[in-house]
Protein backbone atom coordinates (compact mmCIF):
# COMPACT_ATOMS: atom_id res chain seq x y z
CA UNK A 1 0.00 0.00 0.00
CA UNK A 2 2.73 2.40 0.96
CA UNK A 3 4.59 1.63 -2.25
CA UNK A 4 1.47 2.29 -4.31
CA UNK A 5 0.95 5.65 -2.65
CA UNK A 6 4.57 6.67 -3.16
CA UNK A 7 4.48 5.60 -6.84
CA UNK A 8 1.30 7.63 -7.29
CA UNK A 9 2.82 10.71 -5.64
CA UNK A 10 5.99 10.39 -7.70
CA UNK A 11 4.06 10.16 -10.95
CA UNK A 12 2.01 13.23 -10.02
CA UNK A 13 5.23 15.11 -9.30
CA UNK A 14 6.84 13.96 -12.55
CA UNK A 15 3.76 14.95 -14.51
CA UNK A 16 3.87 18.42 -13.00
CA UNK A 17 7.55 18.83 -13.83
CA UNK A 18 7.03 17.68 -17.44
CA UNK A 19 4.09 20.06 -17.91
CA UNK A 20 6.15 22.95 -16.53
CA UNK A 21 9.22 22.22 -18.62
CA UNK A 22 7.21 21.98 -21.83
CA UNK A 23 6.40 25.65 -21.62
CA UNK A 24 10.07 26.63 -21.58
CA UNK A 25 11.83 26.37 -24.96
CA UNK A 26 15.04 24.41 -24.47
CA UNK A 27 18.19 26.49 -24.60
CA UNK A 28 16.40 29.73 -25.34
CA UNK A 29 17.75 32.93 -23.88
CA UNK A 30 15.15 33.97 -21.35
CA UNK A 31 17.19 36.24 -19.12
CA UNK A 32 17.54 39.70 -20.61
CA UNK A 33 19.74 40.89 -17.77
CA UNK A 34 22.78 38.98 -19.05
CA UNK A 35 22.69 40.97 -22.30
CA UNK A 36 22.80 44.15 -20.27
CA UNK A 37 25.84 42.96 -18.27
CA UNK A 38 27.74 41.82 -21.36
CA UNK A 39 27.09 45.00 -23.34
CA UNK A 40 27.38 47.67 -20.65
CA UNK A 41 29.35 45.95 -17.88
CA UNK A 42 32.83 47.04 -18.91
CA UNK A 43 31.78 50.64 -19.45
CA UNK A 44 29.83 50.95 -16.23
CA UNK A 45 32.18 49.21 -13.83
CA UNK A 46 35.59 49.36 -15.53
CA UNK A 47 36.21 45.67 -14.86
CA UNK A 48 37.12 43.61 -17.93
CA UNK A 49 36.12 40.35 -16.26
CA UNK A 50 32.32 40.46 -16.41
CA UNK A 51 31.98 37.80 -13.71
CA UNK A 52 33.83 40.05 -11.29
CA UNK A 53 31.73 43.02 -12.34
CA UNK A 54 28.59 41.07 -11.47
CA UNK A 55 29.90 39.50 -8.26
CA UNK A 56 31.43 42.62 -6.72
CA UNK A 57 29.57 45.51 -8.30
CA UNK A 58 26.06 44.60 -9.44
CA UNK A 59 25.57 41.91 -6.79
CA UNK A 60 27.99 43.17 -4.15
CA UNK A 61 25.48 42.87 -1.35
CA UNK A 62 25.00 39.16 -2.07
CA UNK A 63 28.75 38.72 -1.85
CA UNK A 64 28.71 40.30 1.60
CA UNK A 65 26.08 37.70 2.53
CA UNK A 66 28.26 34.88 1.20
CA UNK A 67 31.18 36.11 3.27
CA UNK A 68 28.93 36.18 6.31
CA UNK A 69 27.83 32.58 5.62
CA UNK A 70 31.46 31.41 5.43
CA UNK A 71 32.27 33.29 8.62
CA UNK A 72 29.33 31.64 10.41
CA UNK A 73 30.50 28.23 9.17
CA UNK A 74 34.01 28.78 10.51
CA UNK A 75 32.66 29.94 13.88
CA UNK A 76 30.32 26.93 14.05
CA UNK A 77 33.20 24.56 13.38
CA UNK A 78 35.26 26.23 16.09
CA UNK A 79 32.34 25.93 18.52
CA UNK A 80 31.86 22.22 17.76
CA UNK A 81 35.54 21.41 18.15
CA UNK A 82 36.07 23.63 21.20
CA UNK A 83 36.84 21.86 24.44
CA UNK A 84 37.48 18.44 22.98
CA UNK A 85 41.19 19.03 22.76
CA UNK A 86 43.27 16.30 24.33
CA UNK A 87 47.03 16.45 24.55
CA UNK A 88 48.48 14.26 21.84
CA UNK A 89 49.80 10.94 23.18
CA UNK A 90 52.57 10.51 20.66
CA UNK A 91 54.33 13.09 18.61
CA UNK A 92 53.54 12.90 14.91
CA UNK A 93 56.21 11.25 12.82
CA UNK A 94 58.37 13.74 10.96
CA UNK A 95 57.81 13.78 7.21
CA UNK A 96 60.58 12.74 4.84
CA UNK A 97 63.27 15.21 3.80
CA UNK A 98 61.97 15.42 0.23
CA UNK A 99 58.43 16.27 1.33
CA UNK A 100 59.62 18.82 3.85
CA UNK A 101 61.94 20.60 1.41
CA UNK A 102 59.33 20.53 -1.36
CA UNK A 103 56.69 22.04 0.88
CA UNK A 104 59.06 24.75 2.07
CA UNK A 105 60.01 25.67 -1.49
CA UNK A 106 56.46 25.57 -2.84
CA UNK A 107 54.80 27.48 -0.01
CA UNK A 108 55.87 31.04 -1.02
CA UNK A 109 55.19 30.33 -4.70
CA UNK A 110 51.64 29.14 -4.04
CA UNK A 111 51.08 32.08 -1.70
CA UNK A 112 52.24 34.49 -4.39
CA UNK A 113 49.96 32.84 -6.96
CA UNK A 114 46.98 33.19 -4.62
CA UNK A 115 47.74 36.87 -4.12
CA UNK A 116 48.10 37.33 -7.88
CA UNK A 117 44.73 35.66 -8.47
CA UNK A 118 42.84 37.96 -6.15
CA UNK A 119 44.61 41.21 -7.04
CA UNK A 120 43.96 40.60 -10.75
CA UNK A 121 40.36 39.54 -10.18
CA UNK A 122 38.99 42.34 -12.35
CA UNK A 123 41.31 41.52 -15.27
CA UNK A 124 41.68 37.75 -15.46
CA UNK A 125 39.51 34.82 -14.37
CA UNK A 126 39.60 34.28 -10.65
CA UNK A 127 38.95 36.49 -7.70
CA UNK A 128 38.70 36.68 -3.96
CA UNK A 129 37.19 33.29 -3.32
CA UNK A 130 39.53 31.42 -5.65
CA UNK A 131 42.62 33.26 -4.40
CA UNK A 132 41.61 32.68 -0.79
CA UNK A 133 41.19 28.96 -1.42
CA UNK A 134 44.63 28.81 -3.06
CA UNK A 135 46.19 30.54 -0.04
CA UNK A 136 44.46 28.06 2.27
CA UNK A 137 45.85 25.18 0.24
CA UNK A 138 49.35 26.62 0.73
CA UNK A 139 48.82 26.43 4.49
CA UNK A 140 47.52 22.88 4.06
CA UNK A 141 50.81 22.02 2.36
CA UNK A 142 52.72 23.36 5.36
CA UNK A 143 50.73 21.04 7.60
CA UNK A 144 51.44 18.06 5.37
CA UNK A 145 55.17 18.50 5.35
CA UNK A 146 56.34 18.85 8.92
CA UNK A 147 55.27 21.68 11.17
CA UNK A 148 58.28 23.85 11.42
CA UNK A 149 56.34 27.04 10.78
CA UNK A 150 53.78 27.85 13.44
CA UNK A 151 50.38 29.04 12.28
CA UNK A 152 49.72 32.34 14.01
CA UNK A 153 46.08 32.14 15.10
CA UNK A 154 45.87 35.69 16.36
CA UNK A 155 47.21 37.13 13.12
CA UNK A 156 44.68 35.12 11.13
CA UNK A 157 41.83 36.35 13.33
CA UNK A 158 42.98 39.96 13.10
CA UNK A 159 43.29 39.74 9.29
CA UNK A 160 39.86 38.19 9.02
CA UNK A 161 38.13 40.76 11.19
CA UNK A 162 39.84 43.74 9.60
CA UNK A 163 39.07 42.59 6.08
CA UNK A 164 35.39 42.13 6.92
CA UNK A 165 35.40 45.59 8.49
CA UNK A 166 37.00 47.17 5.42
CA UNK A 167 34.40 45.55 3.14
CA UNK A 168 31.54 47.06 5.15
CA UNK A 169 33.32 50.43 5.43
CA UNK A 170 33.76 50.58 1.64
CA UNK A 171 30.06 49.89 1.27
CA UNK A 172 29.14 52.58 3.76
CA UNK A 173 31.47 55.08 2.07
CA UNK A 174 29.50 54.52 -1.12
CA UNK A 175 26.33 55.17 0.85
CA UNK A 176 27.62 58.43 2.29
CA UNK A 177 28.96 59.70 -1.04
CA UNK A 178 25.43 60.14 -2.20
CA UNK A 179 24.37 56.81 -3.61
CA UNK A 180 23.63 53.31 -2.44
CA UNK A 181 25.47 50.64 -0.48
CA UNK A 182 28.68 49.57 -2.30
CA UNK A 183 28.49 52.37 -4.88
CA UNK A 184 31.62 52.42 -7.02
CA UNK A 185 32.68 55.92 -5.98
CA UNK A 186 36.37 55.82 -6.96
CA UNK A 187 37.44 56.79 -10.50
CA UNK A 188 37.12 53.92 -12.96
CA UNK A 189 40.40 54.54 -14.80
CA UNK A 190 41.20 52.92 -18.11
CA UNK A 191 39.94 49.40 -18.54
CA UNK A 192 42.46 46.55 -18.74
CA UNK A 193 44.99 48.12 -16.36
CA UNK A 194 45.74 47.02 -12.82
CA UNK A 195 44.65 50.25 -11.17
CA UNK A 196 41.19 50.50 -12.63
CA UNK A 197 37.59 49.61 -11.83
CA UNK A 198 37.34 51.79 -8.71
CA UNK A 199 36.61 49.86 -5.54
CA UNK A 200 36.47 46.42 -7.17
CA UNK A 201 40.17 45.52 -6.65
CA UNK A 202 40.08 46.76 -3.05
CA UNK A 203 37.03 44.66 -2.24
CA UNK A 204 38.46 41.59 -3.95
CA UNK A 205 41.76 41.89 -2.06
CA UNK A 206 39.80 42.15 1.17
CA UNK A 207 37.64 39.13 0.25
CA UNK A 208 40.74 37.13 -0.67
CA UNK A 209 42.43 37.83 2.66
CA UNK A 210 39.26 37.04 4.58
CA UNK A 211 38.49 33.77 2.77
CA UNK A 212 42.13 32.70 2.93
CA UNK A 213 42.50 33.28 6.66
CA UNK A 214 39.13 31.66 7.36
CA UNK A 215 39.80 28.49 5.37
CA UNK A 216 43.34 28.24 6.77
CA UNK A 217 41.84 28.61 10.25
CA UNK A 218 39.38 25.78 9.52
CA UNK A 219 42.21 23.50 8.37
CA UNK A 220 44.28 24.44 11.41
CA UNK A 221 41.34 23.74 13.74
CA UNK A 222 40.72 20.33 12.20
CA UNK A 223 44.33 19.18 12.15
CA UNK A 224 45.38 20.43 15.56
CA UNK A 225 42.33 19.03 17.31
Amino acid at each position, binding site marked *: MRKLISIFLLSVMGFGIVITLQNIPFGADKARVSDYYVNKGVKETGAVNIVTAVVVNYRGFDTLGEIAVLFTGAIGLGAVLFGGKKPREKKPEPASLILRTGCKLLFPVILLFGIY*VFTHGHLTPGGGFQGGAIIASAF*LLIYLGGREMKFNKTAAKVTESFSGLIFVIMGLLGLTSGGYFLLNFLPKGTANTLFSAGIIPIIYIVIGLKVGSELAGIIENLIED
Partner: protein
Amino acid sequence: MIFFIVFLVLLMLAGAIAACVFKDLINAVISLAFVSLIASILFYFLQAADVAMAEVSIGTALVTAIFVIAIRRTKRYEE
Protein backbone atom coordinates in the same frame (compact mmCIF):
# COMPACT_ATOMS: atom_id res chain seq x y z
CA MET B 1 36.71 17.64 -29.41
CA ILE B 2 33.27 16.27 -28.63
CA PHE B 3 34.77 12.78 -28.26
CA PHE B 4 37.25 14.08 -25.74
CA ILE B 5 34.44 15.63 -23.69
CA VAL B 6 32.41 12.42 -23.86
CA PHE B 7 35.51 10.52 -22.73
CA LEU B 8 35.91 12.92 -19.79
CA VAL B 9 32.26 12.51 -18.81
CA LEU B 10 32.60 8.71 -18.91
CA LEU B 11 35.71 8.91 -16.72
CA MET B 12 33.81 11.14 -14.32
CA LEU B 13 30.95 8.63 -14.14
CA ALA B 14 33.43 5.82 -13.46
CA GLY B 15 35.00 7.85 -10.67
CA ALA B 16 31.62 8.62 -9.13
CA ILE B 17 30.59 4.96 -9.18
CA ALA B 18 33.96 3.96 -7.74
CA ALA B 19 33.50 6.47 -4.90
CA CYS B 20 30.23 4.72 -3.99
CA VAL B 21 31.52 1.15 -4.30
CA PHE B 22 34.93 1.28 -2.57
CA LYS B 23 35.06 -0.17 0.93
CA ASP B 24 38.34 1.57 1.66
CA LEU B 25 37.24 5.10 2.47
CA ILE B 26 40.57 6.70 1.53
CA ASN B 27 40.17 5.27 -1.97
CA ALA B 28 36.62 6.61 -2.09
CA VAL B 29 37.81 10.10 -1.15
CA ILE B 30 40.50 10.02 -3.81
CA SER B 31 37.90 9.04 -6.42
CA LEU B 32 35.77 11.93 -5.25
CA ALA B 33 38.71 14.28 -5.78
CA PHE B 34 39.13 12.79 -9.25
CA VAL B 35 35.48 13.51 -10.08
CA SER B 36 36.00 17.07 -8.88
CA LEU B 37 39.11 17.48 -11.03
CA ILE B 38 37.32 16.33 -14.18
CA ALA B 39 34.38 18.58 -13.33
CA SER B 40 36.78 21.52 -13.26
CA ILE B 41 38.20 20.54 -16.67
CA LEU B 42 34.66 20.41 -18.04
CA PHE B 43 33.91 23.82 -16.53
CA TYR B 44 36.94 25.15 -18.36
CA PHE B 45 35.68 23.74 -21.65
CA LEU B 46 32.33 25.39 -20.98
CA GLN B 47 34.22 28.72 -20.74
CA ALA B 48 33.60 29.15 -17.03
CA ALA B 49 37.20 29.65 -15.94
CA ASP B 50 36.25 31.31 -12.64
CA VAL B 51 34.15 28.35 -11.57
CA ALA B 52 36.86 25.94 -12.72
CA MET B 53 39.42 27.64 -10.46
CA ALA B 54 37.12 27.53 -7.47
CA GLU B 55 36.28 23.89 -8.14
CA VAL B 56 39.87 22.75 -8.50
CA SER B 57 41.12 24.52 -5.37
CA ILE B 58 38.19 23.78 -3.06
CA GLY B 59 36.80 20.53 -4.44
CA THR B 60 40.09 18.84 -5.14
CA ALA B 61 42.41 20.16 -2.45
CA LEU B 62 40.56 21.39 0.62
CA VAL B 63 37.56 19.02 0.66
CA THR B 64 39.84 16.01 0.15
CA ALA B 65 42.06 17.14 3.01
CA ILE B 66 39.09 17.61 5.33
CA PHE B 67 37.73 14.16 4.45
CA VAL B 68 41.12 12.53 5.01
CA ILE B 69 41.45 14.21 8.42
CA ALA B 70 37.94 13.02 9.32
CA ILE B 71 38.72 9.44 8.24
CA ARG B 72 41.93 9.46 10.27
CA ARG B 73 39.80 10.13 13.37
CA THR B 74 37.36 7.29 12.68
CA LYS B 75 37.70 3.96 10.87
CA ARG B 76 39.32 3.53 7.51
CA TYR B 77 37.36 0.50 6.27
CA GLU B 78 33.63 0.27 5.80
CA GLU B 79 32.07 -2.97 6.97
